[in-house]
């Protein structure tokens, strides 16, 4: 009975999961913080200086950055899947990841023992690279006033391949930075402190905000672009707006957390399998579920080989894919899309 009750209230259930994941992420880490101190931290009591620094300056910002990243990736993944009516679409489809990677590697390939290279150089370059790549893809794919989906996908794949090749070349010849670049590409919110959270927040909030109010338009788009046009939907404008919003959120996520795969693919599909494909419901669920999933993956990444930290992108695939396959197998009906 209880199970059914919760299943019929997906927002309550997913909100609950997210709350638990947030708490776990705050509570568990390489350093054991006594539960009493944690409780005090939650109600705003005073703590020993070291515990306070660890909770407020290390774990809390890290937790929030991971949650933001997960939400951005799953939200934009669902939007892209709806927009392109393609189950294989993910947040990186039209150049975000490869553009960000190229930007980051370009900065890393410089000889960086210089004071000029600040805290933000890599995330800023990645963010600009991502937006630039998407911009180039859109400019190429534009035919008159429309952006045909097929052209868009092909341009996306081509630009991505080009940027990836360039990054590989740079990585191979950047010597010492090879491992660092590789680690960045595998993903993981290694930057700590409040600055990355504050820097990523506006882009993720704006991007996801636009997506969250576009559920109805995405639903109509599922009928096909011509149908949607006939129903009076300004299809091209909506497409452009959604691409911009999803890319903005994904670019901010990639810039600060590196390339984390599968969250943008698996979370929307898993939620779709359980609660159906109504985008008015699916998009907000993806925001909650994406944050939860990445928080749990990050928790595993931090604990399995503690004190070593695994790149979380490896874990999202290793842990996420079997779970998703199990879900796929369990959904006995044929895959309806």
């Amino acid at each position, binding site marked *: 009975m209880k199970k059914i009750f919760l299943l019929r209230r*997906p*927002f309550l259930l997913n*909100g609950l999961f997210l709350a638990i994941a947030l708490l776990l992420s705050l509570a568990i*880490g*390489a*350093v054991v913080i006594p539960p009493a101190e944690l409780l005090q931290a939650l109600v*705003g009591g005073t703590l020993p*200086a*070291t515990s*306070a*620094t*660890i909770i*407020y*300056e*290390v*774990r*809390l910002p890290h937790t*929030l950055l991971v*949650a933001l990243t997960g939400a951005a990736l799953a939200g934009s993944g669902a939007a892209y899947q709806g927009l392109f009516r393609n189950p294989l679409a993910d947040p990186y489809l039209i150049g975000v990841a490869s553009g960000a990677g190229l930007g980051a590697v370009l900065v890393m390939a410089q000889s*960086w*023992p*210089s*004071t000029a*290279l*600040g*805290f933000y150089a*890599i995330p800023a370059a990645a963010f600009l690279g991502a937006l630039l790549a998407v911009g180039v893809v859109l400019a190429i794919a534009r035919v008159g006033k429309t952006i045909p989906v097929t052209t868009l996908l092909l341009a996306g794949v081509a630009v991505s391949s080009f940027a990836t090749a360039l990054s590989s070349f740079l990585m191979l*010849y950047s*010597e*010492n930075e*090879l*491992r*660092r670049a590789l*680690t960045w590409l595998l993903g*993981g919110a*290694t*930057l*700590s*402190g*409040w*600055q990355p*959270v504050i820097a990523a*927040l506006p882009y993720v909030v704006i991007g*996801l905000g636009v997506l*969250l*109010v576009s*559920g109805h338009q995405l639903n109509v788009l599922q009928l096909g672009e011509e149908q949607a046009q006939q129903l009076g939907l300004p299809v091209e404008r909506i497409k452009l707006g959604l691409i911009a919003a999803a890319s903005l959120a994904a670019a901010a996520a990639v810039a600060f957390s590196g390339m984390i795969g599968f969250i943008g693919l698996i979370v929307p599909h898993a939620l779709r399998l359980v609660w159906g494909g109504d985008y*008015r*419901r699916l998009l*907000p*669920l993806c*925001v*909650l579920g994406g*944050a939860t999933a990445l928080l749990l993956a990050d928790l595993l990444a931090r604990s399995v080989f*503690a*004190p*070593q*930290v*695994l*790149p979380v992108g490896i874990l999202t695939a290793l842990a996420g894919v079997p779970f998703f396959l199990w879900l796929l197998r369990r959904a006995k009906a044929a895959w309806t899309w």
Partner: protein
Amino acid sequence: MKPRLFSILLFISVFLAACASPTAQPTLPAPAVSESQVTPTSTQPAPEFPLTITDGLQRTLTFEAPAQRIISLAPSNTEILFALGAGEQLVGRDVLSDFPPEAQGVADIGDTFIGLNTELIISLEPDLVLAAEITPVEQVAQLEQLGVNVFWLANPSDFEGLYANLAIVGQLTGRSTEAASLVAVLEERVAAVDNALLAKTNTPAVFYELDASEPAAPWTSGAGTFIDLLIARAGGRNAAEGIQGAFAQMSIEELLVQDPDVILLGDAAYGITVESVGQRAGWGDLAAVQSGSVYPFDDNLISRPGPRLVDALEELARLLHPDLFE
């Protein structure tokens, strides 16, 4: 409509919660400093304190007393600290710091490349984090924001640079005397090698193999690197001196043209044996392989810019000129 509104509210509230810890941000406690004063100091504060010193990132830092709770972020730094007798002052080290063996008993704080464990670093309450050139500047900035003293030790480019680094670490740890005597010993050992090599009659060409998982195009180290410098100082000539870069690829064709007198296997630690080299396609024709002048070499001696660079020099000189070193 209702679920959408609810979700947006929930979404907003999560982010409000995120922003609603304004007390957290300005609180940048420096627990490391206050705690360290409680720790009994084993060395008397030298007259040079308070010490104002500039690190490799041109940051000017001031230390009130010799560091007593040190975290090393690189194997080279760990080796320097132990060589100066400051091993007792080490409370944390990166995962790759495996020498001397005592270092492995010190708390592991993660991998520089994959990610250092920031909360472990904070919990150890260090009064000095000794970073190296492999430490990303962002990592330095983050630790600095958390109120940790970070000193970024630049890589030396010659033995003089190594001695200067030893002196710096000596100053930071209140072990300047130990640093001075260590430098004197090292200088003597280098001079001994130089002297012995005065009698050398040949300058063998050396191929230093970093990686040959692709035998047709092995990786080596080019001109201007520490490997290049050490080979020259040990009375040899780097076969890759015409190539640039610390990781440079040389084709087997070029290698056959160069036909080095000696091949050093810097990748011996990864299971590459002298026998396996002869079995690689084309390598059997090399003079070094035919004359049996292929030797395994401990790459850690050369790749870590610490006091063991002098061990590397002695070892190299012995391999290249066995007759001069009995």
